[in-house]
């Protein structure tokens, strides 16, 4: 039973330590380089949490996440830089515009499955990217949008850090709550077997759309925060490449798990920094990790660990039970 005590300590102590670290981080007086990394980590976490809902939990391939990210960033940036909208409204509009796009296009797109769905979402992401790059009068084209201004109250790096991480923690808690109730189970049921889910009264189309809109909303929020963090954005950051890197990070961490979202975000932000010696080849390292993980931990780092622990505990629980198995119910192994 020592294992149980360890597990409880980890379950309670882990989040407490993580929150303490997040709260204390700006007080450590580290170089701006590190606080920038932490800001990006919060933003990437929002992106991967969102992707996880539609792709990880509901099992519907979406390669549009960077497109939603870009749409959110440009909406917030243009409204602020060109029309002078206040920061909160600009960011809210950045959440709303990709959500709306997902809500309108989600119903027809999510009828598709597998490769067809993958292609349709690539199309959606590319559509956004091309609009950002080609619609020069509005977006500034390849040059991007400059002169995005934060309100004076949020100008301090520490305050903006707390805003990003406050929202990231809220999003994390939201996904955790959904994971632990009927909504999360409905998503996983659709992923595991859509016919059986329908036979249980689950409206698959509705739940897929909900996951898709939520994933777009979180990407839009990440986009708005990113625009005001950088104060400058250009289409390069929101291409098909970035959608693929987000997917790879999510899978390496463990699709459909919260721990996996954390690991994946950490990897995506830190790996380019740790492999600076390889310069532009850091994607090569990334690819190698992806291949190794898919070969040896097909459910990702966290997913495989969790499955191992769950199977172990199930065995423990059965061994601890004193009643012998009724013979008549012993199944025929196939």
């Amino acid at each position, binding site marked *: 039973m020592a294992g149980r005590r360890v597990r409880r300590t980890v379950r309670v102590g882990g989040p407490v330590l993580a929150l303490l670290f997040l709260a204390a981080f700006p007080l450590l007086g580290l170089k701006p380089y590190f606080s920038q990394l932490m800001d990006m980590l919060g933003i990437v976490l929002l992106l991967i949490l969102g992707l996880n809902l539609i792709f990880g939990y509901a099992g519907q391939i979406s390669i549009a996440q960077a497109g939603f990210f870009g749409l959110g960033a440009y909406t917030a940036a243009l409204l602020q830089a060109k029309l002078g909208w206040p920061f909160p409204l600009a960011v809210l509009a950045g959440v709303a515009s990709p959500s709306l796009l997902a809500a309108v296009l989600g119903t027809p797109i999510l009828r598709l499955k597998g490769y067809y769905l993958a292609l349709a979402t690539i199309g959606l992401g590319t559509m956004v990217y091309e609009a950002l790059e080609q619609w020069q009068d509005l977006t500034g084209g390849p040059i991007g949008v400059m002169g995005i201004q934060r309100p004076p109250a949020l100008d301090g790096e520490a305050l903006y850090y707390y805003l990003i991480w406050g929202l990231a923690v809220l999003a994390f808690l939201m996904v955790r*709550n959904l994971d632990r109730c009927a909504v999360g189970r409905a998503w996983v049921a659709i992923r595991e077997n859509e016919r059986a889910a329908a036979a249980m009264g689950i409206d698959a189309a509705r739940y897929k759309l909900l996951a898709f809109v939520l994933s777009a909303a979180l990407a839009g929020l990440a986009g708005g925060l990113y625009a005001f963090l950088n104060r400058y954005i250009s289409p390069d950051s929101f291409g098909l490449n970035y959608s693929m890197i987000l997917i790879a990070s999510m899978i390496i961490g463990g699709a459909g798990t919260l721990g996996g979202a954390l690991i994946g975000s950490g990897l995506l932000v830190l790996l380019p920094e740790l492999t600076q010696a390889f310069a532009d080849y850091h994607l090569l390292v990334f690819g190698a990790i992806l291949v190794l993980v898919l070969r040896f931990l097909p459910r990702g780092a966290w997913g495989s660990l969790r499955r191992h622990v769950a199977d172990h505990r199930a065995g423990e629980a059965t061994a601890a039970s004193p009643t012998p198995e009724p013979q008549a119910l012993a199944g025929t192994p196939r």
Partner: protein
Amino acid sequence: MRLHVENVSKTFGGVVALSAVSAQIQPGWITSIIGPNGAGKTTLIDAITGFSPPTGGRVLLDGRPIHTLPPHRVAALGISRTFQTALLFEEMTVLENVLVGQHRSIRSGFWPSAGGLPAVRARERRGRAEALACLQLVGLERLAAFRAGSLPYGKKRLLELARAIASHPDLLLLDEPAAGLNTEETAVLAGMIARIKGMGITVVLVEHDMSLVMSISDHILVLNFGRRLAEGPPHEIRRDPRVIEAYLGEEG
């Protein structure tokens, strides 16, 4: 709860799978559908549950047409089913599979769920207790924490049954529940189906195991080449020359 199948036909391209089949499902009875392979038994279940809508005829539930509804809407009306090969949510635990069965009774609105409100958690706890009771019914309660995919085949079938019961159906359609079970397991299954009937649930059973069908059915519908061949209580069906011919013809 009165189900009426009215002149239901189903064609796949040029192939006629069902041709003007009519049947009344008596509430509270176990009605079995039997017939040689390809007789249209599963097609009929798919037509009733919305998985494959009929190309002709109607399915009425208490006089209301349901054959145009999608599967999840049919399920919402209290019609649950199992599949010919157990379709489980393999990566979920045994308990979670049953909880999905209870989806309609334990789900909460989106915002309370996202906020993790106490009312949502209380509903989850009640759901877990009820799910364990359903597992007890089929003798799987000790395996609640196992991954469904790790169960042996016989237990998968029992889990699928528990999941269907958890959805509180008025009508339960079982598609070959004894397929792949050994004699002992089939005997346990027979007891369970009788208990399900005792809970006031109307059962429709598609099955090849004749001793199972004859021992628990109140009424039997025999299909052959997509048409109704015969209908009646087990003792009549057993002696019906047309039925005997259809089965002997298949084996001969």
